[in-house]
């Protein structure tokens, strides 16, 4: 499994964004977001669904970076590099609202009572919106911010008391959920500090004050979020080091908790499989239940449990449309949108399902052949999907890791600065 294949395929200046998968909490459908497109399969009706977007602009104009379902009102949100936040009706699959942010979005979640939608951008700011349909407020309201850090995880506690945000600077912050979110969340309750590299993802488990996080330090950690106490750490390096091939640490990419809290699934960088854990609520410990591996398919980029106990996994990635931060004309935006939709339509993913710790073979997945065809796109070789996935992982790692320069490189970079006056030391 070479890494260089992916890099060669990557064009200079473009980067690959990983495909995402999400299952509707009521089990009615599964969504794959790849590039700027949403591919939806309705499991109850056993057929694909086309979204209807009558808002402006219609459809995403660049890769989707995060998606989320809410718990109660059948809502879905998609946010991405086009700086758009789209709120969807997840039954009729129509777009309710589109809001434009000033920066690219990196994470999205709903409050536990479904009344609020929170979106984080790549500069550490979290915005809040009301999910009420006829709400006229379209201007994003800043609720909290991590100073100048990329927010990687965002979720609201099941008891409605807290907002948890994780960032690239190794931190997890627990902020009190305010009475009126539109006036801001100013009261930080505690921090969960312990990761020694970027925190990649956070998720709540159960209703007894527990939080799980995964990080670039290859650990999965269990926290008591009321006190910020670290309850248990699981180092995946031992488990994931398959036949000594590990080149450097494999960061945890994503984590998901099953609806009845029996399983915690986690996927790692360059790991063709998924690790399944159990969380003992009494002892407050994590234990590895099963390592589900496959030999032929690509490492997964996203995972999601559905209400029926299936764990859905997707691998794949799509190119971003690099616009840069310079002023863009509406025409250029429209062109970019067409390009993005084209890339998304052509992108290929692989979808797999794990049930009861066993990988379901080929077409025995729910929805069968038709679902696979809808969510995966046209047939393509494993190598293409793997290459795309690896390029996406590399892009994410570069984004989240601290750049380490040697003293020589730092001096060189300082010399390249055009405003420094070189003075003679006396």
């Amino acid at each position, binding site marked *: 499994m070479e890494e260089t294949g992916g890099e060669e395929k990557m064009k200079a200046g473009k980067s690959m964004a990983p495909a995402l998968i999400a299952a509707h909490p009521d089990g009615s459908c599964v969504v794959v977001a790849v590039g700027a497109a949403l591919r939806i399969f309705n499991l109850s009706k056993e057929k694909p669904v086309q979204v209807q977007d009558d808002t402006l602009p219609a459809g995403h104009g660049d890769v989707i970076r995060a998606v989320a379902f809410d718990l109660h009102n059948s809502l879905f949100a998609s946010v991405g590099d086009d700086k758009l936040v789209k709120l969807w009706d997840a039954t009729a699959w129509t777009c309710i609202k589109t809001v434009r942010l000033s920066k690219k979005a990196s994470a999205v979640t709903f409050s536990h009572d479904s009344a609020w939608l929170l979106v984080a951008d790549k500069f550490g700011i979290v915005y809040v919106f009301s999910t009420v349909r006829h709400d006229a407020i379209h201007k994003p309201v800043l609720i*909290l911010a991590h100073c100048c850090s990329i927010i990687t995880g965002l979720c609201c506690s099941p008891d409605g008391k807290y907002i948890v945000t994780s960032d690239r600077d190794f931190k997890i912050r627990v902020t009190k959920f305010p009475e009126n979110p539109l006036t801001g969340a100013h*009261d930080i309750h*505690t921090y969960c500090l312990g990761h*020694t590299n970027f925190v990649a993802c956070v998720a709540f488990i159960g209703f007894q004050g527990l939080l799980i996080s995964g990080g670039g330090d290859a650990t999965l950690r269990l926290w008591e979020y009321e006190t910020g106490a670290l309850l248990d750490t699981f180092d995946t390096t031992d488990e994931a080091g398959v036949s000594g091939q590990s080149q450097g640490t494999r960061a945890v990419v994503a984590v998901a908790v099953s609806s009845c809290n029996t399983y915690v699934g986690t996927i790692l960088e360059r790991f063709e499989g998924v690790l399944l854990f159990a969380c003992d609520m009494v002892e407050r410990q994590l234990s590895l239940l099963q390592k589900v591996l496959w030999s032929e398919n690509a490492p997964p980029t996203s995972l999601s449990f559905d209400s029926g106990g299936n764990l859905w996994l997707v691998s794949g990635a799509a190119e971003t449309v690099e616009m840069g931060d310079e002023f863009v004309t509406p025409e250029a935006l429209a062109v970019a949108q067409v390009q993005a939709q084209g890339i998304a339509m052509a992108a290929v993913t692989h979808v797999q399902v794990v049930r009861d710790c066993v990988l379901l073979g080929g077409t025995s997945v729910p929805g069968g052949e038709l679902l696979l065809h809808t969510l995966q796109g046209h047939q393509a070789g494993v190598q293409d999907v793997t290459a795309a996935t690896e390029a996406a992982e590399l892009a994410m790692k570069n984004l989240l890791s601290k750049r380490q320069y040697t003293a020589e490189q730092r001096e060189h970079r300082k010399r390249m600065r055009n405003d420094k006056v070189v003075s003679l030391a*006396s």
Partner: protein
Amino acid sequence: MPKKRFYRARAHSNPLSDSQFPVPVKPDEFDWSEHFPVFFPATEPEDNAKDLKVRFADIGCGFGGLIVKLALLFPEKLMVGMELRDKVTEYVKERILALREQYKGQYENITVLRTNAMKYLPNYFEKGQLEKMFFLFPDPHFKEKNHRRRIISTALLAEYAYVMAIGGILYTITDVQELGEWMKSTLDSHPLFEPLTADELEKDVCVELLSTATEEGQKVERNQGTTYRAIYRRIVAPKDPAGA
């Protein structure tokens, strides 16, 4: 005593660039005993009364003018200056060592850290630990697109409120009018801070130091500039739910 001319650096440093300095994973993993060697081997019984937690922090301490003055005013309090620039931090280290050498027994309660206070305060300080925080002549970041880098902002005030004790005091001063107005209005609209009364300001010995203790302050005085102070107390969040 180190000479400033060997430690000159640009006034500005990019707070967004990735750090090259080690940061503690959490506050109880940081070894303060290296910074305060006289305070820390707490072997005598009366040492248990010593407060071994850092209580004052000067954010962007520059060449250390303020902490050097505060050291003598509050000899029992441990205080730290935080500075982003490498050379300037080195200067302050040398200065403190020279002062400790020259005045035996004094200046043992101050130290300097090279770190980014906008990102790492919760790594060094526990909740409610600091009694005073100082922000003297911060970078104004004039352009509107750079306003988010200002050290006093609604979002960052949540972090400062977290590391400060209830009743702790936050001091700011600037000679830039627009920044002064920004800081005052940002603090006014934050639910966890309230302004000190004129009476309280008069009684607080630190207030006078804001304009006179540092290099920057002395420069402003020499040029007869006006200064704008905003001094606030960290309070408990008000309970009334009558939000906007």
